[in-house]
């Protein structure tokens, strides 16, 4: 068998050169000093491939338009087996790639491996660092939740501040400061169409250059015999990749990546904060105000990138032992202290979460305690089949948000606008408009405002006769004379405890002809269908004292 296989390999190699190529790749000679410190580049390439793989899988179930983006990501997270893991791998993989790329760069910098003739290798590496950051910036918008939206509002406005180029950048990123469909399409296009091929190309150039010049030796290496890449160094690379992958997989499986609420451009309470690796820039901007702002947001980072790119031409000394590169060590130490300090300051000044809307979890705890208006809301909630898309408290996650969640609570006016034209208040939502009158929508909103995770089940347990009775109570405007659960007017007698005071037949006759039974009453007669009369009376009789 092995003879056959060798024959086939030789045949294939003769046609494609595959075996020769693999051999020359694996049996590349590397300096004697090579070892664990060279593994970071391989880990970075591996993480990039994982990003490409998980990114493609996410794209199979993701709709890249605002609104749909959010809904489809929710679908991936809540409906698809393994969806949360895929997103976790992609999210934490991005953070990890930044870490590994930065460490790779620090290692190369400390050893001075960028020196002649490896200047171009270094510059391709700087370009790859910038591409990695560009993925982070564009990918941040794609979930289209509040974090994504507001984070991108800030980053596009920073881009617009750039001297000379600012207006063009703003135009390129989809308009003057407003983040909408155009910006989204551009970010998505960059993230999946432009950046990946650019990265593949630059990685190829980078690796080609590494191979062309050979792994950078350290002083003394030329006295020692060279080693082969395979298998010792391939093992080290593989082992480092394995450790990185194990950490990544554990994080993806164990640490939940939050999905905030759907992007809400009208939300004035949301405080955007960037991803952790951009926090130092964010903090630096706080220190530079007024005319200094553009300096901190654009000029300084721009200069830093230029200086980083030109490093091989700034430091042109001969290659020396790493322990004697005191200048480089001091520079890395200072940069690390500066970065850590700014990031720590940003974390320390993190504003407290906006105080959650005050919700009274103690009351009401039963449908009988709801006002007639709120109880009528239960009827509309059922009639409109809201529960098809929305969970309320317990139960499996559904298409729409859980209605007991604090974060989606708004005031009644907002809710009614939202019911009438959902997409006007929440761009991109897939919720259909609710075709009800204003009074009915008021009821629905009043009920939803009373819902909380503790009482949702109890409030929705209301029997049909009660909710229908409450609807009749509302449409009959009974509340303009009577009081139920201390809501309503004080003209007629309060209706709580009616069952203790009157017989059912008396109440039913009284609706038809109040004057006959209570001569001084100003109550008008009500012509109710037998069913309505039954529901309303049953409802009133169920009221507690």
């Amino acid at each position: 068998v092995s003879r056959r296989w060798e024959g086939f390999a030789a045949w294939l190699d003769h046609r494609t050169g595959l075996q020769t190529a693999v051999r020359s790749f694996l049996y590349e000679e590397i300096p004697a000093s090579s070892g664990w410190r060279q593994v970071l580049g391989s880990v970075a390439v591996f993480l990039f491939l994982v990003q490409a793989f998980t990114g493609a899988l996410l794209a199979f179930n993701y709709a890249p338009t605002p609104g749909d983006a959010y809904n489809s990501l929710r679908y991936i997270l809540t409906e698809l087996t393994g969806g949360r893991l895929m997103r976790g791998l992609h999210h934490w993989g991005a953070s990890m790639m930044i870490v590994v790329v930065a460490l790779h760069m620090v290692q190369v910098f400390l050893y001075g491996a960028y020196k002649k003739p490896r200047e171009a290798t270094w510059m391709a590496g700087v370009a790859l660092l910038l591409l990695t950051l560009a993925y982070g910036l564009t990918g941040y918008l794609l979930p289209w939740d509040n974090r994504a939206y507001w984070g991108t509002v800030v980053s596009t406005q920073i881009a617009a501040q750039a001297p000379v180029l600012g207006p063009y950048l703003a135009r390129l990123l989809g308009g003057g400061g407003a983040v909408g469909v155009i910006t989204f399409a551009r970010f998505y296009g960059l993230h999946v169409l432009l950046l990946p091929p650019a990265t593949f190309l630059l990685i190829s150039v980078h690796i080609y250059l590494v191979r062309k010049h050979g792994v950078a030796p350290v002083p003394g290496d030329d006295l020692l015999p060279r080693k082969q890449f395979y298998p010792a160094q391939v093992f080290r690379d593989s082992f480092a990749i394995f450790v990185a992958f194990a950490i990544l997989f554990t994080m993806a499986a164990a640490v939940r990546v939050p999905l905030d609420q759907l992007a809400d451009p009208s939300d004035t309470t949301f405080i955007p904060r960037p991803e952790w690796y951009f926090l130092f820039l964010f903090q630096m901007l706080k220190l530079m105000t007024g005319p200094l702002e553009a300096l901190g947001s654009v000029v300084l980072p721009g200069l830093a990138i230029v200086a980083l790119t030109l490093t091989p031409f700034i430091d042109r000394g001969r290659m020396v032992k790493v322990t004697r590169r005191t200048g480089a060590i001091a520079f890395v130490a200072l940069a690390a202290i500066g970065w850590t300090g700014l990031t720590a300051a940003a974390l320390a000044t993190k504003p407290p979460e906006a105080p959650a809307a005050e919700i009274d979890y103690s009351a009401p705890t039963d449908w009988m305690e709801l006002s007639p208006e709120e109880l009528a809301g239960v009827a509309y909630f059922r009639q409109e089949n809201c529960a098809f898309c929305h969970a309320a408290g317990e139960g499996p996650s559904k298409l729409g948000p859980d209605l007991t969640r604090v974060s989606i609570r708004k005031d009644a006016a907002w809710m009614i606008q939202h019911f009438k034209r959902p997409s006007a208040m929440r761009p991109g939502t897939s919720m259909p408009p609710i075709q009800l009158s204003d009074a009915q929508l008021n009821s629905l909103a009043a009920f939803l405002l009373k819902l909380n995770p503790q009482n949702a089940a109890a409030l929705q347990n209301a029997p049909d006769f009660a909710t229908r009775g409450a609807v009749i109570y509302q449409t009959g405007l009974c509340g303009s004379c009577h009081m139920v659960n201390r809501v309503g007017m004080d003209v007629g007698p309060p209706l709580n405890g009616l069952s203790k005071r009157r017989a059912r037949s008396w109440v039913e006759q009284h609706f038809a002809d109040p004057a006959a039974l209570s001569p001084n009453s100003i109550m008008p007669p009500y012509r109710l269908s037998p069913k309505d009369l039954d529901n309303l009376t049953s409802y009133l009789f169920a009221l507690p004292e």
Partner: protein
Amino acid sequence: MQDASIPRQPEAGLARRNFFVVAIYGIWGLIAAALSVPAFVYLFFPPKVRRESEWVEAGDTASLAANQPVEMVFRRNRVDGWKVVSEKDTAWVVKHADGSVTAFGPQCTHLGCAYHWEEGKNEFVCPCHNSAFNADGQVVGGPAPRPLDRYDIRIQGDKLLLGSLRRSSGGPA
């Protein structure tokens, strides 16, 4: 290939090399499995099912006359990925002599054309290939291989609630 920098016994060098090769294959095998198994599950497992409120109100049964099929049009929600689409659907509803009610799916069991009720013949007739069914949905003529499909039904008061459409048995599949 042994580490040329450190002179060593050939056997020791070979053992070391074998360990590296085994470890390399092992590591990449593990990584490939840890990525491909979740990817397979993610792509091939069906979405978690959310089937609730499947019963839709189709119409009123009180107004039905015995053995006079009526076409009822209703809207039902269908889950399509992350969306719920509201679609128009129809059912042919028959009240039988004994008062029981049946709701038939609107398509002929031959090739899926829409059939209709012919008053004069007292039959459901499919215009495509002249399949005919009686008011119980049984085939009485034409190429149709099996009786009409039926909806699951529930009656609440006078309201007719329809569930899922069940494929009828009988005839070739």
